[in-house]
């Protein structure tokens, strides 16, 4: 690992000063960053440890449920407010990583983990995300794990988070701090598609940091489900995952939320399928139609065509669980 300077500022202002330069990186849990630094994929000059900041609270607020950026994934997954109000988030968190990693990984860090694939990690291979302009190793390579939505010729990697899929479905808001003050953006607009700049995974600018996320209150708690399909039963990235949430009233779907993981450069909301389900009955037929609608813009590569069948099947199955049909 390349040598670096390590500091642990005591205040948010000092952190913002320290991250003003592009060579500085925030570290919280470090589960992805330290891994990438060992591989030589990332090599910051300075690590800014933010663990002295008071960002590890979970509390109800006028905006709903506020979750600080430093809350650990393990703590969040077992929190009584989360289990009560947003069990979908708890399910997604427990489907992610391993117990040891969840004890280290933070909410902000989970969001900031790199969108990545094996070619990003292999420094002997071309990768536009790691080194812009070198090409994409995955495009003509072994792309079984890769994107079927929203990719570009530059990059077909997927964002591996489970937590982020649930937060996208739940319509969370991200609070970001910079030297000019705070700003709030919808969770679905935090991560970005690769386009011409796959080196950027999200819209956090240099010098900015995540303070936390807010989840608005909803009526999804009774009818939500996170279904993750992977190569082994636990501790593996998703081939496809689906967060499904239904607001069911009097046998009718008042509102539906659907998001997928393992299929795009960012957590992928299925807005068309959600619209279709609104006002409909929670039947298997409607769930299957919604799943087919969600696949309209899907595009497979040489080794991931199986996802074109797996994805709609997973959407329908997740909806059946959420709707009480499974």
């Amino acid at each position: 690992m390349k040598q670096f300077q390590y500091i642990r500022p005591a205040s948010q202002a000092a952190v913002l000063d320290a991250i003003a330069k592009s060579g500085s990186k925030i570290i919280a849990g470090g589960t992805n960053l330290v891994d990438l630094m060992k591989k030589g994929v990332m090599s910051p000059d300075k690590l800014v440890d933010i663990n002295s900041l008071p960002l590890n609270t979970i509390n109800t607020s006028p905006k709903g449920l506020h979750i600080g950026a430093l809350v650990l994934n393990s703590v969040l997954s077992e929190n009584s407010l989360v289990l009560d109000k947003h069990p979908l988030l708890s399910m997604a968190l427990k489907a992610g990583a391993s117990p040891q990693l969840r004890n280290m990984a933070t909410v902000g860090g989970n969001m900031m983990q790199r969108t990545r694939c094996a070619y990003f990690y292999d420094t002997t291979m071309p990768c536009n995300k790691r080194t812009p302009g070198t090409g994409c190793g995955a495009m003509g390579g072994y792309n079984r794990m890769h994107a079927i939505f929203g990719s570009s010729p530059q990059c077909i990697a997927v964002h591996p988070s489970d937590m982020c899929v649930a937060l996208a479905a739940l319509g969370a808001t991200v609070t970001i701090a910079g030297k000019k003050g705070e700003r709030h953006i919808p969770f679905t607009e935090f991560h970005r598609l690769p386009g011409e700049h796959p080196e950027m995974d999200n819209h956090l600018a240099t010098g900015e940091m995540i303070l936390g996320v807010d989840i608005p209150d909803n009526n999804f708690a009774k009818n939500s489900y996170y279904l993750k399909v992977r190569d082994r039963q636990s501790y593996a990235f998703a081939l496809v995952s689906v967060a499904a949430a239904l607001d069911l009233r009097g046998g009718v779907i008042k509102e539906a939320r659907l998001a997928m993981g393992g299929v795009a450069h960012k957590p992928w909301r299925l807005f068309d399928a959600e619209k279709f389900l609104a006002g409909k009955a929670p039947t298997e037929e409607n769930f299957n139609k919604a799943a087919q609608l969600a696949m309209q813009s899907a595009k497979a590569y040489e080794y991931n065509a199986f996802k074109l069948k797996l994805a709609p099947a997973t959407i329908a199955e997740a909806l059946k669980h959420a709707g009480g049909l499974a």
Partner: protein
Amino acid sequence: MSDKKPIIPPNGEGISNGTRRDFIKQTTVLTAVAMAPGTVVKAASDHIDEQIAAVFEKMPLKMEVNGKLQNLSVEPRSTLLDILREQLDLTGTKKGCDHGQCGACTVHVDGHRVNSCLTLGVMVNGKKITTIEGLAKGDELHPMQEAFLKHDGFQCGYCTPGQIMSAVACIREGHANSEGEIREYMSGNICRCGAYPNIVNAIQEVKAGGQTV
């Protein structure tokens, strides 16, 4: 625990640190001589070597390991795993994948299991670490160690320290209520010998025994 002395003196000063600083100074001056006119060499090298030394300097690390306070001096890039093994000679904690994928390096930090290979030493300053060496009370093995022996919860044994540290945490967390739950919450520990059924049996027995772990 080993009786060997740490390579780095407890006060964080001394031969190792001094040698590193001198080395950086010398090489900086050599580089400066090669690249700059003589008149500016002296002033520039004095300035640069201070900057470089500041970047690469070792940092003090105080942590309690298995009940014993340790005052160390570490590079920011040293992982907790490497510090335990190389500086404290606590080689029970194993380096498997070194990337958080196998769980062989599992230790407890303030009572919570983590991958020590992905933990920077400087980030556990002031914390309490428990390694596999800290579980037994003298010659009396921890109930989980006894259970792994009884149920043959290993073959080659390389993953075993991590498995045991994770197994203890699994019960403490309240995630050992069924075979399925144990398998899910032990999924961060890989055993290439495939001793999983026996590991699950060992954990179930300790859980059923109701002892405080």
